[in-house]
């Protein structure tokens, strides 16, 4: 049932949990609001214990209470699963939190298909599209545990609302990469012919690995890491894209509305050129598989991304399986 796991290092959600406990000890204005997630079971908040509140299985109330607490002067970190935040409780997020521009940090675990075999009711393949549509909400997808800690620290002082998408299982670290700066696209690799833009742990690692594979073909491929979807750093994107003939986005999200759409919007307005989106096809994923297996099936993998680039450039896929036909089927369903 589960595929080969690269499970090393802490999960992003545990890294967040531990960082939040440290921050709450230092900052008496921070709150942790839970909804029976279990993430904080057994955690000793020490002197901050009164600032941990669990509302139970009640996501709409979770968001409304968070808004009320924030309006009352507190800074709540709010915990639920990504799909519950983005769809089940969306109206409360939209009207009570976003409309009032309150400093609520929604930390949403089980983003993308990290819930794997648990099925579509627990997948969040729409959350980035939904959350970035709300004016004033910062939307960020940390790439590993270390980045998560940094993002959470930066969010503690952000004046407005934020949505942070985390995973479920241990996340391999993305080595040699500086800590993220909220709101800034992060160049990972220089390259002028093709530029890959990725967000999320597995897609970003796939993009980095794909660039290596393609370099072996003699292609000059750059990689941008777009952890913050909103506000989006169009300046860095446009500067990095330069004269590249092709931009390819890579994400753990439906093709509609996520990173691919963000980049499409920016390029169309500012630097039009050919774009290809590598993402989960726009349908519900109800076949059993781990996160890695599901993403592999949707070509969100090193060979999948490399194959897509070759197909778009019309190159022979002699370095690996050809995905040209299936890619074209994805593009033109």
């Amino acid at each position, binding site marked *: 049932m589960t595929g080969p796991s690269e499970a090393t290092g802490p999960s992003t959600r545990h890294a967040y949990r531990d960082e939040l406990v440290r921050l709450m000890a230092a900052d008496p204005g921070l709150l942790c609001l839970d909804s029976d997630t279990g993430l904080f079971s057994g955690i000793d908040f020490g002197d901050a214990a009164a600032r941990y509140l669990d509302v139970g299985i*009640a996501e709409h109330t979770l968001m409304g209470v968070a808004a009320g607490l924030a309006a009352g002067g507190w800074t709540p970190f709010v915990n639920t699963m990504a799909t519950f935040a983005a769809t089940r409780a969306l109206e409360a997020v939209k009207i009570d939190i976003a409309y009032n521009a309150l400093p609520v940090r929604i930390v949403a675990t089980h983003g993308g298909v990290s819930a794997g075999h648990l099925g579509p009711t627990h997948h969040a393949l729409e959350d980035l599209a939904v959350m970035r549509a709300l004016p004033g909400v910062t939307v960020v997808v940390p790439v590993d545990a270390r980045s998560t800690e940094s993002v959470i620290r930066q969010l503690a002082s952000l004046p407005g609302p934020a949505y942070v998408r985390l995973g479920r299982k241990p996340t391999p670290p993305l080595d040699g990469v500086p800590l993220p700066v909220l709101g800034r696209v992060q160049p990972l690799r220089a390259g002028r012919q093709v530029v890959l833009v990725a967000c999320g742990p597995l897609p970003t690692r796939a993009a980095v690995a794909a660039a290596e594979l393609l370099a072996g073909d003699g292609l000059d491929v750059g990689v941008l890491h777009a952890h913050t979807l909103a506000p989006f750093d169009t300046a860095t994107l446009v500067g990095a894209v330069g004269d590249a003939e092709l931009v390819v986005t890579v994400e753990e999200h439906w093709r509609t509305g996520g990173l691919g759409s963000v980049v499409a919007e920016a390029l169309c307005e500012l630097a039009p050129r050919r774009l290809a989106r590598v993402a989960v096809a726009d349908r519900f994923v109800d076949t059993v598989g781990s996160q890695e297996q599901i993403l592999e099936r949707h070509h969100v993998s090193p060979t999948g991304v490399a194959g897509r680039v070759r197909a778009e450039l019309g190159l022979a896929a002699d370095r690996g399986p050809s995905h040209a036909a299936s890619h074209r089927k994805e593009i033109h369903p």
Partner: protein
Amino acid sequence: MSVEARALAQRVREHVVDVCATVEGGHLGGSLSCVDILAVLYGAVLRVDPDRPDDPGRDVFLLSKGHAAIALYATLAERGFLPRGELAGYGVLGSRLTGHPVRAVPGVELPTGSLGHGLALGLGLALAARLDGRSGRVVVLLGDGELQEGSCWEAATVAAAHGADRLVAVVDRNDLQQTGPTARHAPPELLADRWRASGWAVREVDGHDHAALLDVLGGAPWEPGRPSVVIARTVKGHGLPFVAGRTHSHYATLSPRQHAKARRALDDFHAGRRP
């Protein structure tokens, strides 16, 4: 009975009728049904000060049934939060008086309008006060139709679980909603039991009896560690005999003739003259 609250209620009813005669019209019935509740709250119960709207020790009021905005605006105007003259601009381009309350209006704590949000918001504010060691109460006015939204009961359950006794809910039980009686969707006679079963302390009063309202609202919370709910029996369109208790009172854009008739009816009502 507080003379001040009675006079306040009269003036608010007149404003409601006047505003419903402006170009956009308004939610006439549901605004009139809660005027006495608002008058007692703002006239005698809530610790609020228009000159210190951000006073951390204040009581907070949330109009969860946000479509009664006109009644709230009129009450806030009479209490000095905004100029009375501003009411005539309701719904007109450039006015800050939107059809459902927004924060831009002085005295409005949080925007409402989509039913079913106010109780969770109020709970959050009550918990914020408790964490701060502040003593202010949070009063949330809900509609009885609004209670068809499950989010209300979800918030009520959480509030009781957290012993939020600074939270006071008031239900404007006028037994009507936009398309007819609420009884078609939920039996009104079960309302008190539903709240009790959710862990709340419950009182039922005549929602147009100022003395009774003052007694229960002034005395809340009645049980330590338990949030309180006042189920106020009201009449939709109260004060205007030709619409009182009628479904079509829900929304009205009064013509000049209807406006004049309504003002005369209010004069009679306030003078105790029965039609």
